[in-house]
């Protein structure tokens, strides 16, 4: 058998990646020891920092702020070139000039979540108590912790009520958490491809990813940073497995089928003969260039723990009792990670709370990833929902 190419080493060194952790190419809000972040696990995280980007201007009434919540492997660079990868912002289809969330009309905020690795305090940050990278000494964080930190950020920015909170997947979980924890601070909520709790299947997939990271000998019980290395093989496998769950059978078949990669015949080896293999390997190796392995463990854990109903006596509707927030819930037909049934359960709970809710299921074969892709029907709905809410809020959404 010929040589077997495994996942290539990342082109960007661990040093380059960790530079963004400590010195992000973003705005940074520092919170000193007088303002600890109260975590659900019982720990007060202090000091800590939040890295964030803003687009557009806050109006005089401070009523046009839109918080974008990023998904598991996203970050604050929603609508600008990414400082590490050089790629366009991850949600430029939805956010940007001429887009449904236009900086001409809104003051757009997107922050890196607590536990992340793009400048907000997380396991890749330096623990001020030891002078070393936190690693697994970092406390376990939850979705409510992420949102609590975001609330502290908007306090710092002098914003009382957000006009809208918008997010998909883990970002959608944060949107729902915002409405459950701070209903009076959220005028409208756009929750996309998400759920009020993480399903057993999704926890199972996350556990698979975590075990792949931990099985990499370079992980060193989470202490790889002190050794100047990164478990990129394990993290890449985790990303490959997760990436499959973001797509669909139909989308994979349409995109790759059984087509071969740069060859006519099978090589009778374990090389990436099929295009789909090559694609997944690329997804894995490009991911590890910008993401920290421990951060991946913490953020997947946060999603696993998420269950809004459990925080409200097991009755989901209680989480949204008498809520005034205007909701728009969107799901995609081929999303099997956060299927429409999850959105429907949310909508039923919102109906039971007499909340003002719109719910649209969009037909696409592109799976969970559809929320990040060019899906015109989704943009039309997002635009109309925000315009209608903006009108009710008295925002000036005319061209200016």
């Amino acid at each position, binding site marked *: 058998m010929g040589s077997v190419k495994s996942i290539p080493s990342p082109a960007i060194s661990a040093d380059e990646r960790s530079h963004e952790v400590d010195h992000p190419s973003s705005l940074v809000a520092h919170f000193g020891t007088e303002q600890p972040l109260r975590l659900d696990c019982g720990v007060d995280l202090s000091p800590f920092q939040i890295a964030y980007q803003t687009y557009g201007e806050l109006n005089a009434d401070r009523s046009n702020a839109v918080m974008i919540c990023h998904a598991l492997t996203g970050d604050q660079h929603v609508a600008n070139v990414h400082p590490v990868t050089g790629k366009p912002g991850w949600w430029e289809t939805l956010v940007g000039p001429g887009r449904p969330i236009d900086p001409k009309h809104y003051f757009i905020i997107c922050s890196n979540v607590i536990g992340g690795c793009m400048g907000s305090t997380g396991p890749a940050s330096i623990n001020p108590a030891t002078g070393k990278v936190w690693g697994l000494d970092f406390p376990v964080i939850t979705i409510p912790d992420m949102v609590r930190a975001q609330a502290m950020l908007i306090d710092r920015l002098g914003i009382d009520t957000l006009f809208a909170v918008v997010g998909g997947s883990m970002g959608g979980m944060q949107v729902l958490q915002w409405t459950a924890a701070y209903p009076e601070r959220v005028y409208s909520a756009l929750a996309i491809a998400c759920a009020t709790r993480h399903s057993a299947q999704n926890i199972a997939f996350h556990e698979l990813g975590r075990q792949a990271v931990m099985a990499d000998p370079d992980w060193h019980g989470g202490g790889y940073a002190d050794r100047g290395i990164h478990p990129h093989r394990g993290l890449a496998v985790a990303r490959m497995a997760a990436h499959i769950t973001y797509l669909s059978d139909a989308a994979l078949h349409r995109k790759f089928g059984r087509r071969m990669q740069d060859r006519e015949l099978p090589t009778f080896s374990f090389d990436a003969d099929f295009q789909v293999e090559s694609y997944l390997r690329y997804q894995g190796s490009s991911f590890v260039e910008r993401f920290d392995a421990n951060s991946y463990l913490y953020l997947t854990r946060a999603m696993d723990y998420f269950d809004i109903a459990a925080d409200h006596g097991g009755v989901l509707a209680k989480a949204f009792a008498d809520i005034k927030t205007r909701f*728009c*819930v969107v799901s995609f037909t081929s999303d099997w990670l956060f299927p429409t049934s999850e959105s429907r359960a949310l*909508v*039923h709970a919102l109906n039971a709370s*007499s909340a*003002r809710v719109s*719910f*649209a*299921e969009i037909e696409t074969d592109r799976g969970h990833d559809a929320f990040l892709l060019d899906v015109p029907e989704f943009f039309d709905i997002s635009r109309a929902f925000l*315009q209608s809410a903006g009108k009710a809020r008295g925002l000036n959404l005319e061209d200016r």
Partner: protein
Amino acid sequence: MSVQEVLPLNGVATAPSGDYRADHRLVAEMVKPGSKVLDVGCGDGDLLQLLETRGIDGRGIELSREGVNRCVAKGLAVVQGDADTDLVNYPDDAFDYVILSQTLQATRQPKVVLENLLRIGRRAIVSFPNFGFWKMRLQLLIGGHMPRTENLPATWYDTANIHFCTIKDFVQLCDEINVKMERSVALDLYGRPVPLNLPWWVWNMFGEQAVFLLSRGGRK
């Protein structure tokens, strides 16, 4: 309930027409401004838009995904759902009015749906095509085939309308489940109200469709 107690709504014929359907205008006239309304089977959201122009807080349920998405793209608060299965998720007294516009005949269990309407809403407004309309009768009597009209063009084998009734049937159902009829109007083929001084059987003969404003009855 006797026929005479069912009084048609006044002033409907003078309502501004615009581009809205006659039955929609009639329904909108029955809703007090400032109310909270659920439109079950809201289609493309035309009625909800009309209600919003009158300062009414409107919500909708629609079965077809295309209809829902068109509504949401108009900025309306509409969810995808089924009148037969999803009304149970709404709490009692959640709305001032629940509207079922041209949908009753397409539900699997009209009686259960009607009961749910008046549980969720303090009042219900129901409009439906009248199968007792003379054209319907004539087609069955003379033509010997299932009736089809301008407003109900589908054939018997592909129609979504599985539970047709006449005005008389509907009044009997309301009586049976102790529903009070506060107002009722029959519209002729051109959307004009059938004159209220005519006897009940004329309504059932010349009303192409009917609109009823209902509330919970007092009888135990």
